[in-house]
């Protein structure tokens, strides 16, 4: 038996509402105790002791939306490289999108990913399976068998389901399995090939815009169907104030809906697109500063439940192009926490809520027993320096792809050590 004591830190565990000076005691792969009561108890004989003075001891992060290229696009990202990026960002569990080639629409593919993850990954990989075969938006996949194989949710990844009747049936059927249907919400017909937020800036730049209503219309349809079917529905990536308002109303009506936002939409706005920088081509597009602010407020008031990296590796073949021809998406596993801490430093979010939306909240949403320091749970832990200054450097990123929105960004706060099942998978070398 090996024993590890993380001593003298600030223990922040939103799953139990703890924010206090304390310690975490780990035996083998699980947590024995965590919190102020462990403080000054001394270390058990033979324990490895890590002094966490001035550091935060938090549950390892659970990232609810990550695109990986394996199988099919390994040159963009493998499960191994994604896991290295995750570990460096304090992410110990991630929900992997089904946009692989072939698409994760078969139990055997879910098993393949889990097998590959067991063999190569530093962190926990939780596959989300497709709602429809081939992500084509037509025939439902085998929700029951896919869940048995290990799928934690259903989503058509980057695609929004076009057909309301397919969405209705998927939700109705998913309810019988208590499965979560997660979806991006952009009405492609109304988006009409737009590549950035519609408005003055898009007109100045001569780029076709996506109106906020393209998101709202699709979102409201899904929220209405969630009400109709009683399914657990997750609006995976909302981007604007009117969407947050719609989710808030659906929650007030008692629907079982949740919402997520990507760290990019919490950190950036449409002005970052100026200069036609394709790394800022995202879907949904970056909106204006009012919307960005509304996202932060919606997290604070509980309308938005989770923050995700929406890590989406793209290579030069899809990014080294004129803006409108480039693929949307940005990597973000390594910068998720640091970018989120900006909202703590600027006072929009308190630390407990910021940690909650990337630990216990996504864990609860996807039914995962992680994102907590509760005794008995797996020892998935992130040790964080809340104020450490650093600059994101393209060459230090572990992802196979380079499409970061935070290249050369100055950050305050970073992960010092990441632990999965009691084993250190990342340690910052200074």
């Amino acid at each position, binding site marked *: 038996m090996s024993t590890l004591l993380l001593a003298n830190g600030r223990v922040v565990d939103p799953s139990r509402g703890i924010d206090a000076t304390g310690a975490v005691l780990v035996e083998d792969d699980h947590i024995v105790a965590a919190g102020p009561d462990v403080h000054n108890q001394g270390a058990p004989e033979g324990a490895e002791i890590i002094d966490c003075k001035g550091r935060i001891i938090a549950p390892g992060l659970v990232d609810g939306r990550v695109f990986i290229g394996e199988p099919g696009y390994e040159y963009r990202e493998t499960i191994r490289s994604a896991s290295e990026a995750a570990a460096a960002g304090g992410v110990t569990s991630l929900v992997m999108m089904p946009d692989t080639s072939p698409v994760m629409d078969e139990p055997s593919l879910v098993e393949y990913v889990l097998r590959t993850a067991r063999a190569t990954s530093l962190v926990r990989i939780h596959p989300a399976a497709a709602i429809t075969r081939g992500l084509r938006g037509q025939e439902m996949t085998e929700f029951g068998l896919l869940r048995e194989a290990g799928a934690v949710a259903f989503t058509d990844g980057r695609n929004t389901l076009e057909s309301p009747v397919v969405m209705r049936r998927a939700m109705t059927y998913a309810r019988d399995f208590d499965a979560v249907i997660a979806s991006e919400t952009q009405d492609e017909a109304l988006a009409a090939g737009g590549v950035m937020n*519609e*408005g*003055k*800036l*898009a*007109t*100045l*730049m*001569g*780029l*076709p*815009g996506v*109106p906020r209503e393209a998101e709202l219309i699709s979102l409201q349809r899904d929220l209405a169907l969630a009400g109709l079917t009683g399914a657990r529905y997750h609006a995976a990536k909302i981007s604007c104030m009117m969407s947050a308002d719609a989710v808030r109303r659906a929650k007030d009506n008692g629907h079982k809906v949740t919402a997520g936002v990507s760290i990019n939409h919490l950190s950036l706005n449409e002005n970052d697109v100026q*200069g*036609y920088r394709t790394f800022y081509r995202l879907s949904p597009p970056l909106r204006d500063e009012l919307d960005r602010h509304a996202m932060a407020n919606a997290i604070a008031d509980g309308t938005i439940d989770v923050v995700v990296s929406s890590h989406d590796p793209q290579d030069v073949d899809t990014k*080294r*192009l*004129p*803006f*409108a*021809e480039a693929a949307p998406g940005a990597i973000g596993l390594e910068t998720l926490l640091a970018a989120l801490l900006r909202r703590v430093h600027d006072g929009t979010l308190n630390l407990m809520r910021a940690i909650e939306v990337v630990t216990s909240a996504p864990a609860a949403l996807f039914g995962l027993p992680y994102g907590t320091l509760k005794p008995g749970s797996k020892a998935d832990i992130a040790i964080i320096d809340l104020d450490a200054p650093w600059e994101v450097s393209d060459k230090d990123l572990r992802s196979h792809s380079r499409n970061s929105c935070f290249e050369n960004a100055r950050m305050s706060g970073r992960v010092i050590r990441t632990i999965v099942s009691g084993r250190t998978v990342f340690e910052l070398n200074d």
Partner: protein
Amino acid sequence: MVARPHSFSMRHLLGIRSLSEQDIEFLLDRAEKAVEVSRRPDKKTSSLRGRTQINLFFEASTRTQASFELAGKRLGADVMNMSVASSSVKKGETLIDTAMTLNAMRPDILVIRHGSSGAAELLAQKVDCAVVNAGDGQHEHPTQALLDALTIRRHKGRLQGLTVAICGDVLHSRVARSNIFLLGKMGARIRLVGPSTLMPAGIDEFGVEVFHRMEDGLAGADVVMMLRLQRERMSGAFVPSEREYFRYFGLDAEKLAFAKDDAIVMHPGPMNRGVEIASLMADAPQSVIEEQVEMGVAVRMAVLELLAGPSHNEEGSS
């Protein structure tokens, strides 16, 4: 030759938005001189002798390409045309790779037209020579706005205080955007006239007045600038039909009568006669459409000379 003022420091011409009022005046003055040269029997000068100009056209454009070619040749440059049909872009090579390849051939000027907004800017970041934007997506077409301004100035003697009505498909038009930027900087009053389906979002924040009836938009105008409307946008997608569009937004004598008596009629070409402009209007005395073509060569000569000419390298004037 006129000395370059300190204010003109542009390495490329990517758009009007980044030019100052002084830059524009200076370019137009230089273009006036090029008009004189172009009207001489011997049109050839030597200011770009030994320089290489590559016209890189990803969108077919006979007129603009010919205009740039002639401008370069009149200045003595060696001009090479590359159009997409014969280039490796169709074989999957990206814009940037094409640019790097051409850059290695050490041209002095790259003139680019591309269907994507921002393509000229992207190219300018990757190559060592001067880049001239000959139209990028729905973003800018700076030499068109300059030639329009030159044409207007020659007829009206000024730009400031004039009322210019820009009519038609503003939404998809890079010509409209460049003209709005230029005329705005030069103190003209800009009106946009067209159906709301062809007006871009946020356009009312551009210091323009928007009209949806030609009669209102043209009332008292000094200049009527028509925009081209692509045929595929007229069959129900943005407007219901050609005949309905012509009825409400096509320029005919009746609608032009609302403008000032001495108003001039402009069109960037190529025209859809009978759609956005009545055939008679295009050939009427008020029409300056052919003169625009002449000014196009002059403006492009001025631009090319300024970006790649001898004064650029501080080698003295010719």
